[in-house]
């Protein structure tokens, strides 16, 4: 965000094309106007959302006890506020699961009150 001109530039992450978007802040707080550079309507929607309330899916790992692997990969089932990503990693670093873990298992129900759930994306068997 350029403080002087109030212009904001970003790359759209909706699809692999990665259009370079340019927009301006409006008069209302968190209002975005004049979105330029997107090649589809999704991009415009993304820009508005992103500037107001950027969200990302978290991908990380959670420790597992007694498994054939010491960690299981996880993701959030919906994007969470971008600025909470590091705090989210802190939260999932505090827990440890007991093997077995199945892909799809919900490991944390309401991550940091965002409503998003932390879901296992791989299987971890009990260690032999």
């Amino acid at each position: 965000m350029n403080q002087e001109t109030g212009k904001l530039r970003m790359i759209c992450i909706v699809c692999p094309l990665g259009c370079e978007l340019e927009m301006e802040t409006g008069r209302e707080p968190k209002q975005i106007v004049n979105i330029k550079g997107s090649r589809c309507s999704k991009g415009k929607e993304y820009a508005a959302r992103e500037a107001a309330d950027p969200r990302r899916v978290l991908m990380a790992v959670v420790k597992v006890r007694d498994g054939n692997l010491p960690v299981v990969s996880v993701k959030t089932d919906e994007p969470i506020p971008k600025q909470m990503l590091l705090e989210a990693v802190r939260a999932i670093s505090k827990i440890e699961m007991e093997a077995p873990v199945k892909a799809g298992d919900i490991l944390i129900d309401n991550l940091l009150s965002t409503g998003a759930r932390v879901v296992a994306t791989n299987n971890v068997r009990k260690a032999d």
Partner: protein
Amino acid sequence: MPRTERVAIIGAGVSGACVARVLSMYRNLEVHLIEREVDVGWGSSKANTGIIHAGYDDDPERFPVRARLCSKGNALWREAWTKELDIPANWPGDLVVATDEGQIGALEMLLERGKRNGVPYLGIVWDRKELEELESNITPNAVAALHAPSAGQFRHPAEAVIGVAENAVSNGVRLHLATEAIGVEARKGQVSGVKTSRGRIEADWVINAGGLYAEAISKMAGVDHFRIHPRRGEYLLFSKDAYPKTERILFPTPTETSKGVVVTTTVDGNLMLGPNAQDLRREESEATDTTQEGLDSAWNEAQKVVKALPPRDKIIRTFAGLRAEPEPSADFIIRAYDDVDGFINAAGIRSPGLTSAPAVASEIVAIMKDRGAKLVRKRRWNPYRRRRKPFRESSYRVRDRMSNQNPLHAKTACQCELVTEAEIVEAIGRGATTLDGIKFRTQAMMGDCQGSFCQFRIAQILARELNIPVWKVTKTGSGSEIGIGDITVLVGRKGEKRA
């Protein structure tokens, strides 16, 4: 029966290990081999071409010790040591290539010199056809070449040191790893012991085989008549599918400073070039880093002896090694001293140190006897060390049997070189505690991927066998750990970047 005399050898490189092996033949010697790294052979010994030189290079007038010991060492490796110790090596012979008429005089001089030094089967080849039969990749500019059939190469020089050291230990030598010599004690002009980072070792004899640090160690004993500075050489190693290769070991006509850049195909079939020669300052004894200029220089020089080299993008590894260059004379310093009785230097073992090492060991024995040591041979001394035959060198039937006997042979640890988990475990049993230690004992991580696939898997095996967390596994000992903790170790630390 004469009293037991204690011998402390400082440095478990090729020289120290060979001295230890030879001294282990004597009943009344208690031999201590002291090494500051966590494994043997990690100084100059591990980073060179591994060539066992024929012995025509060393001028007997100017460098009598080298001249005497090189061809003797060659014969000892070739006729006895590599076989007794089961050290992989091959003997392709070498060619010193002259590419213009002006260099022929040099070849003739080397021929003369070689004969004087006792090099067998030496001759100059003049016929172009014969040259090409000997070496299909010889440069079209070759006018003649000195052919030395007695030259050979180790598969890997560190492997040679490991073989010698294992045999020495099996014959009673006490190996002190991760033990740094910090002082040589003498009482009334007679050596009495070595002070180390792990305590004092009593000794009646102290043999300085300290390689790049020999000058400092000699000074600890009050002997100060030479300097050692590092001479760096850089090397390039190609993948096994890089062509063209060579059949012989190829040298250019040598210069005053060095034998020149060698082109050879290793025992395992990788073309290798190097070293260039760059003299460094005495304090730079840790400068084993490669440089763009050094590698380019080796690459350019290598072109002179061959018809063609493989494309440069087939290089899988580059490395550098340091040789201990003595001053003022460039000859080996192997001698005792009247004012410090019992202290013997085996210093300045520059090229051809690897080749000469077994002969250096005999020299040390001769000096000890000359200084009054009464040495009694053991009735039973075991000259042999056997490796387990590697899985990948075994037939399918044997592999099947091996994996039935030990299921860990059915688990591949290194795919490129086909090294099994059982072999990794065995290497750990033989003393490897680091990734490099495993590398030099098994060939794992030496293939085309240079460890990017298998390094972590091997680290897991080490972690399990040594009962340490996997992030504490090291490449070369303390300070070279592969990780810093588990995945959460940094989470929640101050100073994280904000998203």
